[in-house]
């Protein structure tokens, strides 16, 4: 977030009113402002009014990861506000809020320092105002929970009483930040701000938005990707009570993220009538060539591609040369399937398209993409497109592509009415942007003492970058960076990518390329340990201890940091001190991504029929300085549940060009009885905050697969683990 404060005037606004910042950074003054009612607002993120109400604008969107609690904690800390009296407002899309795209486990990483400065700036101005008021030096004053105190005299004054005077002061360019040793809010487990609304049913998600005159839309699309509407008979649909209109829609030319947007929309006076109307449509589809696409053929094509060298993306030393002199060479093939995000709240959007403006309410992660699509569809300039972001019933990366916003805008424009478009669960499962299917041929060369001299990771599969079609210049870019970040100390490392185009839309799934790479790398490393007769933790420690820190794009791979989380997880799980006997077993995985390191130790029990029960996870995380420890623990627990579903239960498969699965009935996720006990250990750190939403995901599958191996001697190389498909080792 870069906010240029030079040229900012002090701000005086009516209490409770928002602040508009023009392009020059000058504040727009409200005509009736006066010192008595003025509020202090050093930037777009914070306002303290004359009653002392502290308001923080939240510029990243909430999908359960805790930003609506953690971000204001940062401001409140440096401001020395009374945390219990903080009010938050979800910022609509606006230039004054900087980047609002939410994802990549970036929110705290990007906003920690800027929001500290926000709070500290306001505090500095309030202190100066009090100093001026009392005629004392600022150095004699302190702050606490919304008040300024002059210890010597015992004088106290609230921020509210000072706000007007402070608002007249120039905004300081530099302010000093607190010593973290003095933090009273950051580092504490403040309860989730939205908790009370959630438990009473008041929390408003996208599908809860109602706007005046709103109608309800349901959109029937071809289930074959690339299929197009040939004809529709709406006679029966129009007879359904409540149905108002049936409109063919084609948004596929608007953007390559709207490749599902061809079909027929039913507009009705209620959600149910819209769904019923849609069921009554009589449609002929032109399914197109993709109707011949089948899972088996895709996998077979990848297996074939794996036989040849791909584009080389990392090449340390010379892997080929290690083969002749190696005591041992091991090759294993892994497959990670297509995966759906399947959040509980299906895609939806509420839109009012008018000739003079477009107003959007959406549960979306990237509101800028929402606005761009609306601009293209309506022809309106950005200033006339407003985007409000609601709470999201889960995101996981699915709500980055605002295809559902584009569809809603199209439908509202075509129908001439404000509408709410609600996707059914089947729509959500079948018209996604899936984690890409991938094949991994892993080869390693070793000496008899267990030292690894060569590592080759050959990845084959479709690419997220190929959303626009097969002619994408560098399809490996979106897929192989995680493999390039192989952290272990091996002198000869080769990473290759074979792109195989598949028209199924793919997109970022929580942890993105790290999710399938973590499974593959941490499983194969375990295979090498087994082949060498060395304990899996010890094997990894040896490969990390001489490791070099390196940077790939903006990711820092620090083997020493990885060693520390690995050691902590091993100790807390009693890995060495209390071994488990079959049919129980422990497995380990250690990964680094998005600014954090995580080590998981999973414990499983496998019964004689092969049923796997994951009983416990012991997880260690180093995510730098922690804003809210309980949120970190929650993200580890949640990541484990999310990744366990992919490990044990569900995958997306393709038949006749269609996604086979439809709902949690056939794309099932972890349920209460399948959730292991989770112990989270956070490494105390004074380093800059890292990410937390994604880092605990990548190592989960391997930890479980490795544990199953320890428990049974059988290794799974395809997910989800099917007990009947476990290969004999």
């Amino acid at each position, binding site marked *: 977030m870069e906010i240029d404060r030079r040229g900012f005037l002090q701000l005086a606004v009516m209490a409770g009113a928002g602040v508009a910042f023009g392009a020059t950074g000058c504040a727009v003054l409200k005509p009736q402002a006066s010192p008595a009612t003025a509020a202090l607002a050093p930037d777009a993120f914070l306002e303290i009014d004359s009653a002392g109400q502290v308001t923080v604008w939240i510029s990243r969107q909430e999908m359960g990861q805790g930003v609506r609690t953690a971000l204001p904690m940062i401001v409140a800390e440096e401001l020395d506000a009374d945390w219990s009296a903080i009010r938050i407002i979800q910022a609509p899309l606006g230039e004054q809020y900087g980047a609002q795209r939410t994802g990549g486990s970036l929110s705290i990483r990007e906003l920690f320092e800027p929001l500290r400065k926000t709070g500290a700036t306001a505090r500095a101005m309030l202190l100066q105002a009090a100093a001026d008021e009392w005629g004392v030096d600022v150095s004699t004053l302190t702050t606490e929970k919304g008040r300024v105190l002059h210890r010597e005299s015992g004088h106290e004054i609230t921020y509210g009483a000072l706000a007007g005077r402070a608002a007249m002061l120039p905004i300081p360019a530099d302010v000093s930040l607190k010593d973290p040793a003095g933090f009273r809010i950051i580092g504490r*487990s403040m*309860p*989730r701000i939205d908790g009370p609304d959630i438990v*009473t049913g008041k929390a408003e998600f996208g*599908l809860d938005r*109602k706007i005046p005159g709103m109608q*309800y839309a349901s959109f029937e699309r071809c289930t074959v990707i690339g299929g197009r509407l040939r004809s529709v008979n709406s006679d029966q649909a129009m007879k359904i009570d409540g149905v108002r209109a049936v409109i063919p829609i084609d948004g596929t030319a608007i953007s390559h993220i709207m490749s599902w947007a061809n079909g027929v929309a039913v507009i009705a006076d209620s959600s149910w009538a819209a769904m019923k109307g849609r069921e009554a449509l009589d449609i002929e589809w032109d399914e197109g060539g993709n109707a011949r696409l089948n899972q088996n053929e895709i996998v077979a094509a990848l297996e074939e591609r794996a036989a040849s060298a791909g584009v080389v993306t990392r090449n340390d030393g010379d892997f080929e040369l290690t083969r002749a002199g190696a005591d041992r060479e091991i090759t294993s093939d892994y497959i990670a399937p297509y995966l759906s995000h399947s959040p509980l*709240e*299906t895609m939806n959007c509420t839109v009012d398209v008018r000739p003079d403006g477009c107003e959007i309410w959406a549960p979306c992660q990237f509101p800028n993409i929402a606005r761009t699509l609306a601009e293209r569809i309506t022809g309106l300039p950005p200033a006339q497109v407003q985007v409000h972001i609601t709470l999201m019933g889960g995101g996981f990366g699915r709500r980055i592509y605002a295809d559902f916003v584009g569809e809603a805008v199209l439908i509202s424009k075509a129908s001439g009415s404000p509408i709410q478009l609600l996707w059914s669960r089947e729509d959500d499962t079948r018209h996604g942007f899936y984690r890409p299917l991938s094949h991994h041929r892993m080869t390693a060369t070793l000496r008899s003492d267990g030292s690894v001299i060569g590592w080759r990771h050959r990845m084959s599969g479709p690419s997220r970058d190929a959303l626009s079609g097969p002619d994408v210049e560098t399809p490996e870019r979106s897929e192989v960076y995680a493999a390039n970040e192989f952290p272990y100390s091996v002198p000869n490392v080769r990473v290759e990518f074979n792109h195989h185009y598949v028209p199924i839309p793919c997109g970022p799934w929580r942890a993105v390329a790290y999710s399938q790479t973590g499974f593959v790398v941490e499983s194969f490393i375990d295979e090498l340990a087994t082949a060498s007769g060395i304990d899996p933790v010890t094997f990894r420690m040896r490969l990390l201890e001489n490791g070099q820190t390196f940077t790939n794009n903006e990711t820092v791979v620090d083997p020493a940091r990885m060693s520390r989380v690995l050691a902590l997880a091993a100790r807390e799980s009693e890995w060495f001190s209390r071994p488990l006997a079959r049919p129980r077993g422990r497995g380990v995985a250690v990964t680094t991504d998005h600014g954090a390191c995580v080590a998981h130790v999973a414990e499983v029990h496998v019964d004689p029929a092969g049923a796997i029960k994951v009983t416990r996870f012991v997880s260690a995380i180093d995510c730098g300085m922690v804003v809210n420890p309980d949120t970190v623990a929650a993200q580890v627990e949640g990541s484990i549940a999310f990744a366990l579903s992919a490990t044990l239960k569900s995958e997306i498969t393709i038949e006749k060009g269609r996604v086979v699965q439809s709902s949690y009935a056939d794309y099932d996720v972890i349920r209460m009885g399948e959730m292991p*006990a989770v112990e989270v250990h956070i490494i105390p750190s004074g380093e800059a905050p890292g990410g937390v939403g994604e880092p605990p995901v990548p190592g989960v599958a391997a930890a479980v697969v490795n544990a199953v191996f320890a428990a049974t001697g059988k290794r799974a190389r395809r997910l989800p683990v099917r007990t009947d498909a476990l290969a004999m080792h």
Partner: protein
Amino acid sequence: MPVISLTVNGTEEQIEISDDIPLLWVLRDRLGLLGTKYGCGVGVCGSCTIHVEGRAVRSCMTAAAGLAGSRVVTIEGLASSGDLHPLQQAWLDEDVSQCGFCQPGQLMTAAALLAENHQPSDEDIDEAMAEIVCRCGTYGRIRKAIHRAAGSGASS
């Protein structure tokens, strides 16, 4: 269209209904009770769970037409006269929620469990709560909160 009478959160409502409209959409679109969520519409996720005559029921799979004269309670009616239900308080004390979308369904299911079984074991909880999906993975905290509300003090 026939009109049926049912009591929702203590208030008697006269509702005109078409043949097969599920209770879920009557609650959301007719009565403006938005706490009960649409998650799947096919009874496999539990986000739509409410109480009919005190029992946990999937409102997406329950035709409103069959409920004439019934007492329905939704998440909005779980708290009584200003006090949170012990489960709601326990949910806050354990900081259960992440995104929060499934939590009304979780709470209604848990409330029906506790009404029938004051001291559920972990196995009882697993069985009763198996129907309700949480994609954010708050299951461990839900279990703790149920034990807390039950006053047993036990944790898994």
